[in-house]
Structures are given as structure tokens and as C-alpha cells.
């Protein structure tokens, strides 16, 4: 059924459609409407799940780790400082190979206090072993929750579905909500192989000495590499069933069948605005291909090389920063491209931090700079008011 939904509520309805059994969350800012609506759905008996209210995000993650260990499909949602407080437990969920799914609303880290869109919160959790999927619009948010469960359960790793604060979390737009039976066919009940069961006691996650630890890490890396292929398969299956698929890396050419001299790499909701800027630039005779990066962990190295390698120039637009280095997506893309002989010149722009608007004019400006005489640099800033 097609209806107008707020981004946060699209997450809640996807969780309902996924027949999640345990939800745990801490409800105070920077939390969003996601768990508010889920609490209502559980209280009204619409969603047959246990909603566990806890005293912190750290405890919320601990609770879903416990639930998933017992074999229950589990969900939580958080943002910025809440996600940061979960950090220790994020490692635990991945190390324990639990397919928990979390909705992560990209909000800036303080101080100064800022609840607006900024990706540094989720990217700071890059090395925890979580799959990370970035979304462009509300429909993609809903669909990606369903894809994330199937992917997480396939490879036994947790998955984070990332959506921009306000631009997606608080925006109402038309969304196709799939039917329950269609979702059930795509996403059957999770059948874990190893669960905590008092009737059949086992010990989990105990001491791993240097004799064993490294092989556990190797297996997590292998699962991530499997997740690359699994994501593409599951995304394609979703496309066959529901008519929508997204790709780990999705190239949006300026002109169909042609390659422009310049590629612009975007993530999250900025991709939508980049489509608008692309059309405006085309009118002015400037060709820019937009390349949308959805899957950040596992990082699609080969696909990045294949898609971006042939360009002369590549802009990466980062709404995040690793202090002392630069934009995080740009850094990973440059590392991937380094394996190629010939490489495009990469223009790593940092823009839109803390919710500063990235408009079509912002994008036209970075394009003009990259096509002009801007010398390649390790970091380029756009829209600074100094």
C-alpha cells in the first residue's frame, strides 16, 4: 500500500513487517520517533514483540545482544551520543556474530550541542564489525531495514541502517509499504544454529587466547567479504520481489550510455540533491555522473575501482570528518583506488557538517572547483564561513 510516512515511522513499520521479537531502546534525545512508534505498536498489540526499556544506550545494546543470543530477531535505534555510548557493546555484538539490526540516525557529535545531520557518529563505529548501509530516501530506509535483516542473518553479523537526521528522519513522503505476506516470503523467520538455551547449556564468548583469537577475527573478515556478495544477491532478490533495488555502488550517469569526465560520489540523502544539481549542470552543458555509495561496511573495493577508476576526476562529498585526516569516505575511496595503476584525481570535499544545508548550489560550487584549477589536496572545505 502506498501512503505518506515520516522517515522514522517508515523504520518502525519495517521493523513490524520484519516480525521483530525484541526491541530495546533508550528514549531520550538524541533518540527519534522510531522507538516511540514501536512502543505504541507493541502496546497496542499490533506488533507481537517485547519492548525492553533501559537506562542507557549501552544497556539497550546489551539487551538486544542477550535477546539475539537466545535466538530472537532483535532491533534497536540510536543516534550520535547514544551510539557512542553503545560503542563497547557494538564490538560485542559483532564479535559474538549476532545479526542485530539497528537504525542509526546520523546526528552530529557535541560539543557544541547539535542534533542535525552529520555522519561522523556512524563512521566513528567503522571498525566495530557492523555492516553499514546508507540510505537516500524514506522508501530506501524502509526497504533497507528488510534487506539488512536478511543480510545480517545470512552472514551472522550485525547491521546498521543509516539515515540522515531531519532530511530523512523527520520528513514525510509517499512510501510503498509492502504487504506482510510478501515480506514473510522474502524474510522468513530467523533460524539460528547456536542459541543460549537453559535446556541445552553451552558457554559462549569466553576467553580466546592468542592461540585462537586471530582466527576468530579472520572469520569476521571472511563474513564481511561474504556479505559483499550476499548484499548484491539479496538486493537483487528484493528487486525481483518488490521492484526496487539499490546496489552497493550505484552510478547515476549524466547521460545514459555515456561517461562524463567527472564523477561525484555521495552518500545518504545528499544523493537526492545531487540528482537535482546534476540536471541543472546538464542544462549548462556540464556533465557530472553521480555515484551513490550505499554499502560502507563491507567496503566494496573492487566495485569502487571498477566504477570510479575510468574517470579523470572524482569528487567525494563527505558530511563527516576524521580530525587530522579528512573526509572518511574520501579516504576509503582513495585507498581502494590506490590498487589501480592509473587513478583519477580525487577531490575530497568536506561540507554540510552539523546539518549545514548542502544545496544544489553547494554541489555546483564543488563541481566548478574540481573542474577549475583547484589543486588536488588531502582535504578541501566547501561552505566555510571564516
Amino acid at each position: 500500500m502506498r501512503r505518506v510516512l515520516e522517515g522514522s515511522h517508515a523504520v518502525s513499520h519495517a521493523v513490524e513487517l520484519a516480525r521483530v521479537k525484541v526491541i530495546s531502546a533508550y528514549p531520550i534525545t538524541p533518540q527519534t520517533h522510531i522507538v516511540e512508534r514501536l512502543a505504541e505498536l507493541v502496546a497496542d498489540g499490533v506488533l507481537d514483540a517485547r519492548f525492553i526499556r533501559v537506562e542507557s544506550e549501552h544497556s539497550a545494546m546489551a539487551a538486544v545482544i542477550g535477546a539475539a543470543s537466545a535466538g530472537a530477531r532483535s532491533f534497536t535505534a540510536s543516534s550520535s551520543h547514544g551510539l557512542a555510548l553503545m560503542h563497547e557493546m557494538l564490538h560485542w555484538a559483532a564479535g559474538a556474530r549476532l545479526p542485530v539490526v539497528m537504525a542509526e540516525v546520523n546526528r552530529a557529535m557535541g560539543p557544541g550541542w547539535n542534533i542535525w545531520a552529520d555522519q561522523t557518529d556512524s563512521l566513528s563505529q567503522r571498525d566495530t564489525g557492523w555492516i553499514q548501509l546508507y540510505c537516500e530516501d524514506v522508501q530506501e530506509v524502509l526497504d533497507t531495514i528488510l534487506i539488512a535483516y536478511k543480510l545480517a542473518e545470512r552472514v551472522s553479523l550485525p547491521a546498521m541502517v543509516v539515515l540522515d537526521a531531519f532530511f530523512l528522519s523527520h520528513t514525510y513522503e509517499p512510501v510503498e509499504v509492502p504487504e506482510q505476506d510478501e515480506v514473510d516470503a522474502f524474510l522468513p523467520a530467523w533460524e539460528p544454529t547456536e542459541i543460549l538455551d537453559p535446556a541445552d547449556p553451552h558457554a559462549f564468548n569466553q576467553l580466546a587466547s592468542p592461540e585462537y583469537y586471530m582466527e576468530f577475527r579472520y572469520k569476521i573478515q571472511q563474513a564481511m567479504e561474504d556479505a559483499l556478495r550476499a548484499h548484491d544477491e539479496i538486493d537483487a532478490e528484493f528487486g525481483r520481489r518488490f521492484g526496487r533495488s539499490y546496489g552497493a555502488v550505484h552510478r547515476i550517469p549524466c547521460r545514459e550510455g555515456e561517461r562524463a569526465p567527472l564523477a561525484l560520489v555521495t552518500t545518504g540523502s545528499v544523493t537526492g540533491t545531487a540528482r537535482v544539481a546534476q540536471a541543472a549542470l546538464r542544462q549548462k552543458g556540464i556533465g557530472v555522473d553521480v555515484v551513490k555509495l550505499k554499502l560502507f561496511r563491507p567496503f566494496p573495493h573492487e566495485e569502487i575501482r571498477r566504477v570510479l577508476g575510468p574517470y579523470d576526476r572524482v569528487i567525494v562529498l563527505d558530511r563527516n570528518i576524521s580530525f587530522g585526516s579528512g573526509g572518511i569516505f574520501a579516504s576509503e575511496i582513495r585507498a581502494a583506488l590506490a590498487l589501480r595503476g592509473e587513478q583519477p584525481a580525487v577531490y575530497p570535499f568536506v561540507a554540510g557538517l552539523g546539518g549545514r544545508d548542502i544545496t544544489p548550489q553547494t554541489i555546483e560550487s564543488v563541481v566548478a572547483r574540481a573542474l577549475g584549477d583547484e589543486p588536488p589536496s588531502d582535504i578541501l572545505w566547501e561552505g566555510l564561513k571564516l
Partner: protein
Amino acid sequence: MVEIRFHGRGGQGAVVASNILAAACFIEGKYVQAFPAFGVERRGAPVEAYIRIDDRKIHLRTNVYTPDHVVVLDPTLIEVVDVTRGLKPGATLLLNTDKLPNAYPRFTSFRVATVDASRIALRHRLGSRTHPIVNTAILGAFARVTGLVSVDAVCEAIQEEVPSHHEANIAAAREAYETVVLPEAPAEAAP
């Protein structure tokens, strides 16, 4: 694409008004995008909400800077907030006030329409004398003034989106549709 900005005070229902209007336009087959001013809301403080309407999918994800229409839910905001900020010349400015459009000579570059939505809301027992809930009434007036959406679709959206007092809200929307004072000069550039 049409962009609309709502001005209200926290708790008056400006955000809900933008959601109801989005639902109404969606019912009539339009693509919509509605969102609040991105910020921290407090009861009584000036708030803004926005909606974009188009025949095609809307990809743009930015704030609204140059609206085609502005709706003001609280007459006291006119003195406090620059309600015509970025408003395109010839655009519609719909005010909830007991005054007539010619009481606002400073807005002559816009199509000013007025409706006494507070009085209409109170007559239908929506809210209290100090806090009338005017968001449904003003949408009835909006439908008449802009012609962007039918009043029937607004009423259907009220039925879907408003949790209670459907009949009173629908009656208020219809009364505002009938009693809104239209701009004196016909539109030139208004989309």
C-alpha cells in the same frame, strides 16, 4: 514544484497542518514532501513547517528558501517573524486574522488573503480561547486561495491524519473555505 512555508507557534499544529496538506495532495495523486523546521521545538515559540508538492518524485533535500506560498497560523507572528522572507513576488500570503487583506499595505507585492481561523476554530470548539487549534480551518482557506488542492481532499486527509474531533475539524475547514477573504488583485506570477 511548489514550495509552501507554514508559520505557527509550538503547539498550534503548524507541523500537523503541513502533514495534513501533504496527505491531501497525495490523495489527489501528487508527490509530496513535508518536514518541520529542523530544530528544537518549544511550546509557544515561533515554529515553521514546509511542504513541497510536485507531479514527479521530489529528490531535493534542502530547506525551503523561496516559498511560493506562506501560511501564518498566528496573527501575532506577523510582528515578530519576517513571514515574507524569500517569498516570491506575486506569491500568496494567507493570514489567520480578523482583519481584511487591505489592512496589510506593507504586503502589497503579494496576494494577501485573510481568514478568521481562530474564531472559526472556537465556534467548532477546537482548542480554547487562548489556544484555538486553527490548523484544519486554515487548510480549508488554503484550498480556496491557491486551488492547489480540493477542499474535499483536505477533509479526507483530516479524517486520516487527525486523531479526534473529525467532524468539527472538517466543518471548520469547510467554513474557512467559504469565508476566506480573497486577494483583491488577481495573481500574476503565482504558480
